[in-house]
């Protein structure tokens, strides 16, 4: 139970035969932040998808926060996902809603009371420094700002695990560094975070553990 993420001999073979993950065992401690790196096609996205229950492993066990994901039925997937914060390379914001409504979405999905929503959305937007932008539409924001909205949306429901798949993939180095500082701050408040990135330069100077994937195999750094 001390590990928020635990992979035990996980194999993922896609229909068609491609072996994406080959006997991967790893763990992320509660409150830890780690980078998942490797060349493109190394299996980073597959690993993230297994944690988000977007894919199921071919063999092996994935345990998240004490829950064996093999025992989460299709109908229980929504409830499970509500406890994991997902951050995407392309932000995945809804462009017909304001920044506020985008961030509020996870709380609306959970059926939270209106005044709680307002309070928590403001808090999340304050954390990412976008409180003054709450009435704007995402299209009017820069890429870095859009990703910060994405992060606010991921943390607003206080998930016990934050997963970011190439969060800085579309951003320049300056903005990427800003986003990383934001993750560092979130980690310092106790959130467990796993960040998949192929941007080695970005990770180099940071003191966090690196999990390296190479053609579906795990290399310990």
């Amino acid at each position: 139970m001390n590990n928020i993420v635990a992979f035990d001999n996980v194999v993922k073979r896609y229909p068609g035969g491609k072996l994406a993950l080959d006997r991967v065992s790893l763990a992320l401690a509660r409150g830890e932040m780690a980078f998942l790196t490797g060349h493109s096609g190394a299996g980073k996205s597959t690993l993230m998808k297994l944690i988000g229950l977007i894919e199921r492993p071919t063999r092996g066990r994935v345990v998240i926060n004490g829950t064996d994901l093999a025992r989460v039925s299709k109908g229980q997937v929504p409830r499970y996902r509500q406890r994991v914060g997902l951050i995407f390379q392309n932000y995945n914001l809804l462009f017909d809603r304001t920044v506020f409504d985008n961030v509020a979405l996870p709380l609306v999905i959970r059926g939270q009371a209106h005044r709680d929503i307002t309070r928590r959305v403001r808090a999340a937007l304050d954390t990412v420094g976008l409180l003054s932008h709450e009435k704007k539409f995402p299209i009017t924001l820069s890429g870095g700002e859009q990703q910060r909205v994405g992060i606010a949306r991921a943390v607003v429901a206080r998930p016990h695990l934050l997963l970011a798949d190439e969060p800085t993939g579309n951003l320049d180095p300056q903005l990427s560094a800003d986003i990383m500082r934001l993750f560092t701050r979130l980690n310092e408040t106790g959130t467990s975070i796993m960040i998949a990135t192929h941007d080695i330069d970005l990770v180099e100077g940071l003191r966090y553990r690196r999990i390296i994937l190479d053609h579906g195999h795990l290399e310990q750094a």
Partner: protein
Amino acid sequence: MAARRPSSRRLSELALTESLTGWAVAHARCLLESLGRLSRRWIASALTVLVIGIALALPSGLFVVVKNMDRLAGQWHQSVQISVYLDNDASPETGQRLTDDLADEPRIESTRFISADEGLAEFKKASGFGAALDALGDNPLPGVIQVTPRATLAPAAVSELVEALGQRDSVAKASLDEAWLRRLSAILDLISQASWVIGLLLSAAVVFIVGNTIRLDIENRRQEIEVMKLLGATDAFIRRPFLYSGMWYGLLGALVALIVLGVCRIALGGSLATLVSSYNGAFAITGLGLNGVFWLIAAGLFLGWVGCAITVNRELAAIEPR
């Protein structure tokens, strides 16, 4: 301090109230949000609503027509006439006497005697068989008394009267001129059944129209639905605004149908007024009535909901984040 803390029972009541309020708020939000979605693509929505409206107006209009014709046929039943055919050897004087006797009967409104000769003259004029009838020599037609029963007489009493007239001396046969009425009532039954069949077919059409519109709507929102699923939205949560959209389509379609019926009533106003005035106030056109309006709206809501429900589950299941 402890005394001021609410009991656990009170707390659970509070939680229940809160979750019920949350549920109501979520539905109200969906109701308005789905209306907002319709208005954002209002041309496409308006076309859909218009088609639904016309599809609903047709069977409703037929229903109104049948309802009025039924009442009209009831009126005609009261203006029915009895033909009393006299024996061939009865003289015109006997016929005239009988006619005057019958006119004093309380059950009878009025009588008119048509002698054999008058009947033949009328028939010659109407049929154009003049020369052929001349060749017959003898007049083959009997004398006839046309009897109009009192309008207050029930159909059963009219039948009794016909029976009694048939038993009289010098009378060969008395018959009710109601064959055309029976045909009319059969035609009305047919129209009434046809309106049910047409109603069913058009209801199916409404279901498919709504289903198709919702399918396109879902296709347009594929990315949004994927994101919501990634954020942990249940299928019920994603489905809800679409179901409300379907019901809005149905409701607005029903309102359009009411407008269409109203416009038809105005367009037909002139000829309807002529028809009604010929009844000297004894007959008035009725519309759908409050009941009919209620059922039309209920049908619209139900069909919209069904059209959406049969589409949305299948379409949503096909959308999974990758």
